[in-house]
């Protein structure tokens, strides 16, 4: 046993020397790479992170943030109007529905087909059942849709387009109506629009006393609502 001790010690010393050499070797080039760097603030922070970062306040003593399910095992397509020009749709398809699809169109049909979102303009009084088709990304479960049609009603369909071009609808949404983006053209008989009020108000708004109205509306709407879609006013001028 006692014979082994010098060997163990010797090995330990050699090991330490090797480690020290590696350490020094690793350290040495470091200044080289750091010095030529232009002292930009972002880079400096990246290279020299603060030695001891205090734990984030939110993490101390609190339970882990819960994870919400990505799907609820339902078949649903919901359409929401975000503003006069945009809609938002989200959807999910149950495994059962996918199985039905495969059973009908063949085992490979799901992989071979592409997801499609269809948007129908269902505004009452509109002539044709005109629709917009969007090829959404495979695996996407929501989409922001630009329609650019204020005061129109829409219904969406989600489905898959087969390689032969057929569209297979799988989900149907609720109806969502985009809000108006301007003054209404409708000035019903019972309540005549008091033209004077608007005309004079615009005059002050354009003058020195209250540019606020026009400016504020312009900022919020990206347009001057009082000057658009008001033919009586334009005519009066």
């Amino acid at each position: 046993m006692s014979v082994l001790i010098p060997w163990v010690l010797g090995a330990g010393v050699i090991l330490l020397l090797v480690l020290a050499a590696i350490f020094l070797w690793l350290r040495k080039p470091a200044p080289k790479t750091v010095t030529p760097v232009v002292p930009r603030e972002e880079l400096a922070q990246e290279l020299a992170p603060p030695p001891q970062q205090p734990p984030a306040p939110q993490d101390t003593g609190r339970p882990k943030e819960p994870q919400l399910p990505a799907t609820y095992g339902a078949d649903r397509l919901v359409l929401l109007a975000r503003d006069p020009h945009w809609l938002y749709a989200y959807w999910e398809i149950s495994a059962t529905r996918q199985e039905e699809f495969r059973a009908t169109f063949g085992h490979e049909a799901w992989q071979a087909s592409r997801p499609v979102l269809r948007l129908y303009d269902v505004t009452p009084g509109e002539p044709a059942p005109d629709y917009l088709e969007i090829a959404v990304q495979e695996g996407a479960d929501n989409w922001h849709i630009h329609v650019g049609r204020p005061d129109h009603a829409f219904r969406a369909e989600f489905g898959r387009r087969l390689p032969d071009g057929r569209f297979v609808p799988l989900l149907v949404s609720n109806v969502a109506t985009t809000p108006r983006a301007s003054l209404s053209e409708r000035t019903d008989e019972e309540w005549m629009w008091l033209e004077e009020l608007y005309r004079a108000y615009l005059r002050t708004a354009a003058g020195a006393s209250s540019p606020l109205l026009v400016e504020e509306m312009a900022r919020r709407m990206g347009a001057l609502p009082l000057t658009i879609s008001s033919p009586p006013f334009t005519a009066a001028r």
Partner: protein
Amino acid sequence: MPKGYLLMVLHAHLPFVRHPEHEHFLEERWLFEALTECYLPLLKVFEGLVRDGVPFRLTVTLSPTLLSMLCDPLLQERYVAHLGRLLELAEREVHRTCGTPFHPVALMYRELFGECYRRYCYHYQRDLIASFRRLQEAGHLEIITTAATHGYLPLLMLQPQTVRAQIAIAVDTYRRHFGRTPPGFWLPECGYAPGLDDILKEFNLRYFFTDTHGVLFAAHRPRYNVFAPIFAPAGVAAFGRDVESSKQVWSAREGYPGDYDYREFYRDIGFDLDYEYIKPYIHPDGIRIQTGIKYYRITGPTDHKEPYVPEWACNKAAIHAGNFMFNRQHQVRYLAGVMDRPPVVVAPYDAELFGHWWFEGPRWLDFLCRKLAYDQDDLAMITASDYLAAFPCNQKTTPCASSWGNKGYHEVWLCAANDWIWRHLHWAGGRMQELARRHRGADGLLRRALNQAARELLLAQSSDWPFIMATGTAVAYAVRRFKEHIANFLRLDGEIKGGRIDEGFLAWLEHKNNVFPDLNYEVYAGG
């Protein structure tokens, strides 16, 4: 008879932030700061006006979650402790600043916090709601309500029963505190969508407020622009916000609050002073936070800031009140000339603007009420109820879906930063209705679980979470709160469905998320 009317609304709301599980919780300070800087100073203004016999008439929303927090013993206790620490700091500051230009400001804070402490503890005995109630009963304030947890109703309208529950619980909470039916309703974020008026009508709510274009872009062009209300199809009146008066107060750039003599919000000693000195008054984990003691005035568009001078700021508040009144007089005189009835100028503001962001806001309001009462005859303050009593006949048309958020529609609550919440909210909303219909008249443990599931759903529906996610500050907290409430709901849903309710977990949730203790889940059953 005045030439026109000014309808001012102060909308007071905070999300339900109550964390019995931690002694120091950063977000609870939202309530403490609002109490010290807004609610107590505003009450002081109102009571001062009453004391001096100044006639005034204001509309105030007290949101159901705010009412719940104001009467919560744990939060009351914590607020008193918070004020105690603040007073101690103010005292130390008075000594530290001796002989510097900051000394008068330090004295001001000591006086201010001391007064808050005395009034909160002794005068109100921690019960602010009672004093709001007295002001309403004396005819100075008209207090209205808003959705139970300030849910963003236009996007919840996919399931009208969940909107009905938000309103039913709000009306119930209001009745409990004020002993009457609320006369009107503040739509959270002024978010309107056609059909909401039908539900408001069911609860005898007679009016609501929209942003300018909510009325201006109505289905039929409104005869009087936004200077008279319109009746939504259900017969509920919609009052549209006046742009000019809003902008003068709201705009950070051109509005009054940006005046160079006013207090600078962003320079707080919580960030400016030596760490070791300020440590006992910031978060125990060493996170620097706003203490409420701020020594500088806005000074100008520079980083260099000069010390705050209370007298200068007070003078400016008086000047700005006079300017606001002058502009409104000018406005109604002009409008009265082209209208065949007196115009009503609707000026709604977040109450938290007054005192918190705009430190001098309560003073400004004080000056404004006094000037309106004594310095002119063109304008009278009015409430929506008074207006509707005087002018019961109004144009009938459907308001435009809108909000007072950025860009005027629903985008703030439905954008890339928060669109993911809606699939969970709608799912949980559907499940809650299903549970309520399936378990009508439940009792015992099942009833408790159903009621708590409803509370968790309501708390998840708060418009504050998506708003915070969209604005990018305190996002982590909002995301966590949202996920926690949905996860709690889903767990309760599963336990109810499986018939195995974990009483320990339920009791913990009842203790922690104890909003609306008298809630009845059957409000989700409908019919």
